[in-house]
């Protein structure tokens, strides 16, 4: 049982990053009722941003993180205006295929521009290992976890206490009532989309020093985020947070027990199980899934 501290630390570090990806996805769903199938592509683009800033400008990924924040937010805003706004009141199938189209386009832009090769960032500290108690882990992973937790906490505080955050929550609860109260829901949607994209963008830049980047890297992470988001209840922020830790636990403990080759099957089965038994998620309202709303 000497592996327990290592497993716990690995779970926590992984869960922190998953949480940041999942929180952005669930925020967008909660407010806009749109499942963003292009979420993983924003992650991938952010990883490439960190990679190219490092390769061309010798910018450390953490410097890039600060500099790129407005850029990522702006990209989110623009993508909403260009792609999502026209279909925001359309049916689910139209919205699904709009984001799928966005995903295909972005993924293949990356493929054409930067080829399918996996690229690494070799920072001076990429091999630095931190030992703590019985556990050892990568320094970059620890930093990523720390910043991810800070970013998630900042988002929660923003939604909880800021006036804009309250407006967003009000829109999530009832878009018609919000509209009647004089809330400009169109602006709320663009802001929500941009904030959601920023979350996943930050996650992408944080992942860049730890994972290789390639055009389809988003799928791997976003699948996990789907699991976490559905597990926590689509649209439920706190649920997504807890569910991210659960998914990370399943992944880490699973790969320890049955090997890394089959670990994905565990969280996929967990996902299918949840969808079948309790599609509203662990904490969600029963019946939400049947409304399809």
């Amino acid at each position, binding site marked *: 049982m000497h592996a327990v501290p290592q497993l716990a630390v690995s779970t926590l570090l992984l869960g922190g990053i998953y949480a940041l990806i999942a929180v952005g996805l669930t925020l967008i769903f909660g407010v806009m*009722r749109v*499942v963003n*199938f292009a979420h993983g592509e924003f992650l991938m683009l952010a990883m490439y941003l960190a990679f190219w800033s490092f390769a061309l400008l010798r910018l450390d990924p953490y410097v890039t993180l600060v500099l790129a924040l407005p850029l990522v937010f702006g990209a989110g805003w623009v993508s909403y205006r260009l*792609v999502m706004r*026209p*279909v925001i*009141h*359309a*049916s*689910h*199938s*139209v919205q*699904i*295929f*709009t984001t*799928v*189209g*966005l*995903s*295909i*386009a*972005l*993924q*293949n*832009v990356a*493929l*054409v521009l930067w*080829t*399918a090769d996996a690229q690494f960032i070799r920072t001076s500290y990429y091999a630095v290992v931190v030992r703590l108690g019985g556990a050892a882990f990568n320094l970059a992973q620890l930093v990523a976890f720390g910043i991810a937790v800070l970013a998630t906490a900042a988002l929660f505080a923003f939604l909880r206490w800021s006036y804009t955050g309250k407006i967003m929550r009000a829109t999530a609860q009832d*878009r*018609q009532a919000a509209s009647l109260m004089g809330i400009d829901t169109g602006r709320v949607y663009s802001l929500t989309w941009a904030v959601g994209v920023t979350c996943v963008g930050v996650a992408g830049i944080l992942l860049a020093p730890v994972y290789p980047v390639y055009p389809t890297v988003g*799928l791997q992470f976003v*699948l996990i985020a*789907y*699991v976490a988001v*559905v597990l926590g209840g*689509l649209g439920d922020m706190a649920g997504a947070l807890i569910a991210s830790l659960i998914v990370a636990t399943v992944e880490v403990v699973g790969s320890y027990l049955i090997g890394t*080759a*089959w670990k*994905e*099957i565990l969280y*996929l*089965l967990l*996902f*299918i199980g949840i*969808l*079948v038994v309790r*599609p509203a998620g662990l904490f969600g309202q029963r019946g939400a*899934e*049947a*409304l*399809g*709303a």
Partner: protein
Amino acid sequence: MTRGLGGVGPAVALFGFAAIVPLFVRDAFFLDGLILILLWGAAASAWNVAGGYAGQISLGHSMFFGLGAYSAALLGTKWNVSPWIALVVGAALATTVGFVIGFLSNRLRGPYFGLATIAFSQVFLIAGSRWRGFTSGSEGIAVPFRPGFWTLGFVDKRAWAYLMLVLAIGLYLIQLYLERSRRGYQLAAVREDEDAALSLGVPARRLKVAAIAVSAALASICGTLWAQYVGFVDPFYVFSVDLSVRFALAAVTGGIGTALGPFLGAALITVLETSLRARFGGIAAGLVGIYLIIYGVALILVMRFAPQGLVPWLASLRRRRPAPRATGTAGAAP
């Protein structure tokens, strides 16, 4: 939805053209394009049975296609079984899986169903690529080439073209049935408003499961024929999300829930792909991905300006009056 017999005119022209072309054209490149258009059109039609007519938007249909492909590959290499039998076995397997998935995710609507199907198809991807002892894992399997009709080995591409044409026409007729029969109207009712359909005595749950199972079997048949034609099965391709998306996209751009739409969508994407492949072969092969960029952007634009897809849009242009409000695509969910 009823358009009388006049509605099949364009289809007769299209399939008639596909039937005549191989008589005059021997060019392998051209015939290959034709075969792929018919095959992808058929696969997209199979998707359309569940996604278009029953409104069950699946993003995991590659698992059924892959089941058919693996049936051909495994039964052929391990037991020397005829692909025709593999076709039946694959379809039976896919039907079973379709029943299970349809049953398990019966309550799920909208994006939830799509997410569930992605998860199911990923399970197959992992099984196909990691179960080395049975499926040869990520290396994939070469499908043995045995000349003859019973073993589905044709050197002549024209034979393939006619086989795929039969498949395509079969799929078209099935969709036509769903467009015009009582069963089809019931499915449309379920798609538009499940609760209303239920209250009118339409067996909504059963119909949805049946649509998914039939759709799965048809996708599997396409997979078997594809495997025999291409001669190689790679788990990362046949079970990929990309392939699932490809089926859905052809149907959605062409016209979701229309019989001809999937073929039009498949023709557009295949022509774009093969012409770019011919243009940028060899050194600039990376540029072939441009067709998917174009396709992604085109999809966004179609969803924006003609959400019912191109076939209903073209039909409305011809009639010079506004398109009928698309079923399942108009009206916002509050």
